[in-house]
Structures are given as structure tokens and as C-alpha cells.
């Protein structure tokens, strides 16, 4: 599977990477235009929203308009906004007057933490079980695991989140209800603080792990099944290799490739799942933040956040594309 790259091959790879990087800029521009125009299509006069619940008088509305540059033609407004964004100024929230960028940057870490933990656990469990299920195809273990996976996949994540809070927090009292850490308690050591924080992490990440593992398990299993049917597996066995070597060294590596592709491109999906979980568990991350500001119709913050999310997704896609190009010598660099 690993072939030495010829000089020509290397050149093509590098040009592919360069080309891929260059495409990012127009894509980002297009996205910024899309986000800007979408938000500005929103009905309702922003001047009134800023002015507050009482409809401001004409003069006040005019002042607000001037101050926020809302009286300029839309393309001009867009360019002004874009130039600010490029300088790192994402504007100020309508409601709290805090700089948007500051609000967002503080919330990235909790989301990343939650997603990373859930992701790692999901992948490990799904790959282990998926391989076992594929190797033991047609057995009871396989059938049971597949059924459990389907059930897990069908469970609505926010519902199971509520049920688990009900069960583990309210009735059993094993874990705290919601939140990020215990406020107002002084811990003897940082380790105790860490353990406390962990207790808040368990439930939300478990809920995420449930759904993601189920889906990944199905993917791993079907990918392994397909790979195991290939001729080169037959060759490996005919060569007399031990079954374990055949499975791990030959089958698994190839089976994992589509999984890696899927995972790399699914950061958007992960973010969605995390959003509602964050909301329920009051986990102070980006997802919950988005729900709150959308509810309050805080448009500038919404624009800034959308832009950030879009950038994150684009960067993730870029890394995935490049990593994939490096990893798989078979794909063509078109």
C-alpha cells in the first residue's frame, strides 16, 4: 500500500496542496458574503432592536443608524464589516456591548474539550467493537452489537441527555446536574478541582459518545466487511500469515481510510450534536452560546460566530484534504 513517491509524484502533491490552499481565500470571501447577506435579510429593523423594546423616536433611530453605519448602502456596509473582521474586530454584541471576539474565544475551549473527549472515546470503542463484529460476521455477537448500535443511533440525544440527568443526577445523585465545575468551593489541591470538573464532564460526554459510537461502529463494521472480502486479504492468508496480522496490518489499515475521511469532514456534524448537549448541560461552549444569541436575535454576534464556525469547518476540511492526499497514494490530484 505504501509506494515510494517518484519525483513527479512529489511535485503533483505539492502543487495540489498549494492549489488547495489558494482556493481557501475565495471560498472564505464567498462565505463571508453569504453570512453577511443572510443576516441582513432578516426582517426587523436593527435600529429598533438596538434601541430597545420601546420603539425609539425618529431622531434616536436616525442616530443609531448613523452610529452603526446602517444608513450606508449594503455593499458598503459589507466592506466595512469585512475590513473590521480581517483586523480581528468582530463587532460588539447588540445586547451586552461586549466585543464579540472576546466572548467567543472564551467559549472555544469548553466545546473543544467536550468534543475531543467524546470523539476519542467514541473512535476507540467503535473501532474495537467494529473490527470484532466484522471478524465475527454472522455470529450472535455481531448481530447483537449491530442491533445495539442501531438502537443507540436512533435514540434522540437530547432526550437521553434529560433521562440521564433524571436518572444519574436527580435520582441516584452520582453526578452533578449541569455546569462546568462547582462554583464557590475551594479545593484542597488542583487535583481535587480537576476531579470535580471531571464529574461534570461525564454525563454530557457519555451522551455524545452513545450516539457517535453507534454510528461509527456501523461504519467501521461495514468498511471492514468490505475490505475483508478483497483479494489481497485472501493472498495474505494464503501466504500463511497469522490471522491477527492479516486483520490488523492489512485489513484494518485499509478499512480505516474511509472512516478517517468521514471523521475529518464531520466536524460540522460534531458541532451540531455538541450544541444541544451543551445547552442542556449548561456547558459553557460555542454551541450553547449560539443557541442563546440566536434566541435573543443578537445579529452582530451571530454573524461573528457564524464566521468563526465557517472558518473552523474550512480549516478542518483543508487539513483533511491535505492529510488524505498524503496518506492515500491512490487518489488523483485533480
Amino acid at each position, binding site marked *: 500500500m505504501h509506494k515510494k513517491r517518484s519525483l513527479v509524484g512529489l511535485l503533483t502533491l505539492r502543487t495540489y496542496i498549494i492549489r488547495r490552499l489558494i482556493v481557501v481565500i475565495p*471560498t472564505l470571501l464567498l*462565505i463571508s458574503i453569504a453570512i453577511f447577506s*443572510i*443576516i441582513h*435579510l*432578516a*426582517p*426587523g429593523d436593527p435600529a429598533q432592536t438596538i434601541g430597545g423594546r420601546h420603539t425609539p423616536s425618529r431622531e434616536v433611530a436616525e442616530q443609531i443608524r448613523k452610529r452603526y453605519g446602517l444608513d450606508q448602502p449594503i455593499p458598503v456596509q459589507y466592506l466595512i464589516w469585512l475590513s473590521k473582521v480581517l483586523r480581528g474586530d468582530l463587532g460588539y454584541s447588540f445586547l451586552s456591548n461586549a466585543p464579540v471576539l472576546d466572548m467567543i474565544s472564551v467559549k472555544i475551549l469548553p466545546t473543544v474539550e467536550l468534543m475531543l473527549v467524546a470523539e476519542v472515546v467514541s473512535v476507540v470503542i467503535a473501532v474495537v467493537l467494529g473490527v470484532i463484529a466484522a471478524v465475527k460476521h454472522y455470529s450472535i455477537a455481531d448481530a447483537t452489537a449491530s*442491533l445495539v448500535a*442501531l*438502537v443507540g*443511533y*436512533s*435514540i*434522540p440525544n*437530547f*432526550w*437521553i441527555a*434529560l*433521562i440521564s*440527568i*433524571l436518572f444519574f*443526577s*436527580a435520582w441516584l445523585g452520582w453526578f452533578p446536574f449541569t455546569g462546568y465545575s462547582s462554583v464557590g468551593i475551594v479545593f484542597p489541591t488542583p487535583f481535587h478541582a480537576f476531579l470535580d470538573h471531571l464529574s461534570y464532564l461525564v454525563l454530557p460526554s457519555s451522551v455524545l459518545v452513545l450516539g457517535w459510537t453507534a454510528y461509527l461502529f456501523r461504519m467501521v463494521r461495514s468498511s471492514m466487511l468490505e475490505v475483508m472480502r478483497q483479494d489481497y486479504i485472501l493472498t495474505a492468508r494464503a501466504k500463511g500469515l497469522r490471522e491477527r496480522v492479516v486483520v490488523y496490518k492489512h485489513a484494518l489499515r485499509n478499512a480505516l481510510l474511509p472512516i478517517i475521511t468521514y471523521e475529518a*469532514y*464531520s*466536524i*460540522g*456534524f*460534531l*458541532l*451540531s*450534536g455538541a*450544541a*444541544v448537549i451543551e*445547552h442542556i448541560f449548561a456547558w459553557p461552549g460555542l*454551541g450553547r452560546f*449560539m*443557541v442563546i444569541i*440566536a*434566541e435573543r*436575535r443578537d445579529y452582530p454576534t*451571530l454573524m461573528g*460566530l*457564524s464566521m468563526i*464556525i*465557517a472558518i473552523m*469547518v474550512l480549516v*478542518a*476540511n483543508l487539513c483533511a484534504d491535505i492529510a488524505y492526499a498524503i496518506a492515500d497514494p491512490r487518489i488523483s490530484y485533480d
Partner: protein
Amino acid sequence: MTNLSAAKSGEKAEELVEPSKATQLSIVWRKLRFSKLAVAGFGLVVFMFMLALLAPVIAPYDPDWTGHRARPPTMEHLFGTDARGRDMLTLVVYGAQISLYVGVAAVTLEILIGLAIGMVSGYFGGLVDEVLMRITDLVLTLPTLPLLIVAIVLFETRSIHTIVLVMGIFGWPFMARVVRSEFLTLRETTFVEAARSMGATHWRIITRHILPNILSTIIVIATMDIAWFIFWEATLTFLGFGDPNSPSWGVLLERGYINFPSAWWIITFPGLALFFASLGFNLLGDGLRDALDVTTRSR
């Protein structure tokens, strides 16, 4: 096929072997019946639709009737009552109407748009294909929930039809990709080539030759997407972006969240209904995928 030589030589002709009279539908049904899980899924789906259609008949109480507030499940109220005193069982049964409507309507929209785009992209190829696929890939990787939330926030009215519209519109990338790849494959087949050589127009080739073959794929994806859309509607409503006047399961969950966790029954049962509906559609979709697979013979 008759044994002509036998007939000619005067021997007793072998029995005529008639071509099987089985329609495609009956073949699929027979294959489907073999998988217990698929049958279970089908049963669940039918059950849900029955709930929705027969709601006025089945539900024990009137949905607007109010009695004792927030009572846990008892013999009188199997699922308990909600904060206003409405019977939960009734609400769940009526909720099926809205939730199922949302799922089916959104999927229909998704099919229409995804099919159109995938068709154009896969059949005509070239620059159109390139551009469409780039856009599709981009929308595909965008996070669903934020996208839906932003789109819904734009509409001033919080109507259930808005949700259907938004979900259907943002569901096309996946369908389009699959349709496109099917079109790419089928475009190169000999029967299409034959049709083209006979002078068939593009439209005729598409509708009479290619489309019937991708029907099974579309059906499988549509079935599982119904489950997805019901789920997304519930999620959106739960987060507060739904339509409080159309009491889908999501609305029930949203209402129940306020009294959580003390009045646990208000969210447990609608959620359970959601779960079983999703399970049913997923099982059915899985079963259909295996049953519609032309490469395996029916046992």
C-alpha cells in the same frame, strides 16, 4: 422455454417453464419479510402512521381537555398530565400527526431538490458538475444545527411549515451527491447508450431509463431521512425555535423541559415516542436497503 427439439421429435414436451410472475414489489416484500428486524421496523412505522391517522379515535381524551395539573402516570392517565392538565397520552398520540407530517414533507422537499441537482450534475457533467459539487460539499460540511438555527431566525413567523421548508432545503446535499454518483454510473451503461443511439432525448433517457433504477436508492435514503427530520424538528423546537402552536413531540418536550426533572413524565413519553419512530424508520430503511439490493437473490 419449450423444448423445441423434443416437440419436433414428437416426444412428450418438457413442462413449460413460465417466467416468474412476481412483480418487483412482491419480490422486495418477500425479501423484507425474512429479516425480523425489518418487519419490526415496518410494523413500528405503520403503527406510528396509524396513531397519526386514527388520533381522534384512539386518544382517550380530547387534546384540549384539562383536568388535574401535572399528575404522574396513573390508571386514568396512563402517561400522566402536563402542566396545564392535559392528558399526556392524548398529546403524544396527536403529536404523531405533526411530527410525521414534518418528516414526510421535509423529505419530499429534499428529494425534489436533491434529485434535480444531482440529476443535472451527474448527467451533464463538466463545469456545471464541478461548480455544483463544490457548493454541495461545502454545505454538506457545514454544521447542521447552527445552519438550521440561523435560517429559522431569519423568518419572523415561527410556523411549522417554515421548519419543514428550511429542513427540506438544507437536506439536499446528501441526496444530491448520491443521485449524482448513481447518474454517473448509469450514464455509461449499454442500455442508455442504446437508447441514445436510437435518438432518445435527454429527458426521455433520464425519466425512462435512469430514474427507475435509482428509485430504490432514493427510497432507502428517504426512509432514514424521515427519522432524521423528525429528530431535527424536535431538536429545533426543544431549543426554542419551533412552532408552539403545532404540538409535535418536540413541542411537548419543550414544554416538559420547564418542569424538569420534577415532572419527569412530561418529557419521558414524548421522547419515547420519538425514539420508537426513529427506530422504526431506521430499521425499515436498513431492511429496505438489504431487500432492494438486486444482487442478492430472495431465499
